[in-house]
């Protein structure tokens, strides 16, 4: 009697370099947005691209969240758990650093005329940076589990499910 999976689950794929590329693009876009606010349109384009790609990565990478409602076995559950834990830790750290930095900026902006509303005012800059940082954290949240799982997962076993072991059976006397 079959008590296991009734159907074949899609193979797990390691995506080692694509998440790193997305992280690089997201980091560059964050720096550009902060250093050159006039390139805001470029930041929007890069952000839309990275967030979309990050979502696709989490569907088709080793996390396979597209099949989240399907059966996963204990090994896959363990890897998902580890990778998500790593991502939550990293995201919490980055978010904390961002909040501290923005807090310092808010103090400075308060001294420099917080309530002035103009495109170059500290208030507008604070709001823009808050959005930039939050978006960066979202990208990290989407990409880091895939990145962690892809780099920590051992080499994938080639599927030889149809092949029976080739050792000769012991001869019966």
């Amino acid at each position: 009697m079959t008590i296991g999976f009734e159907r074949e689950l899609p193979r797990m794929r390691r995506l080692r370099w694509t998440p790193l590329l997305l992280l690089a693009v997201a980091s560059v876009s964050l720096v550009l947005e902060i250093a050159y606010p006039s390139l805001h349109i470029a930041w929007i384009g890069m952000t839309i691209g990275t967030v979309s790609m990050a979502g696709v990565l989490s569907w088709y990478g080793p996390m396979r969240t597209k099949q989240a409602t399907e059966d996963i076995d204990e090994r896959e559950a363990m890897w998902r758990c580890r990778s998500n834990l790593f991502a939550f830790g990293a995201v919490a750290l980055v978010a904390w650093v961002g909040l501290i930095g923005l807090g310092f900026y808010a103090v400075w902006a308060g001294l420099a005329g917080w309530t002035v509303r103009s495109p170059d005012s500290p208030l507008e800059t604070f709001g823009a940076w808050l959005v930039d940082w939050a978006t960066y954290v979202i990208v990290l949240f989407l990409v880091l589990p895939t990145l962690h799982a892809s780099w920590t997962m051992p080499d994938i076993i080639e599927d030889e499910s149809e092949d029976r072991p080739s050792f000769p059976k012991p001869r019966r006397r």
Partner: protein
Amino acid sequence: MHNRIALFRAERSVSRRELAEAVGVNNQTIGYLERGDYKPSLELALKIARFFGVAVETVFSLTPFEPIAATLKRAGRDEE
């Protein structure tokens, strides 16, 4: 943790897929187990042992198993 899953599979002529279906895991998990890249839960270890009809410590061990050649040699010596 060490195991003799590959040995038992070879002896019983069981494919990875058959074993995986019987114990309720993905095919690749059996491969990872055989290669030592994954340590099974107690439940999975018990299911695998039950599938082969042996005690769990016959399939899994915390110390390396004795090579088959050494076991056979010792068994032959005992028979003499």
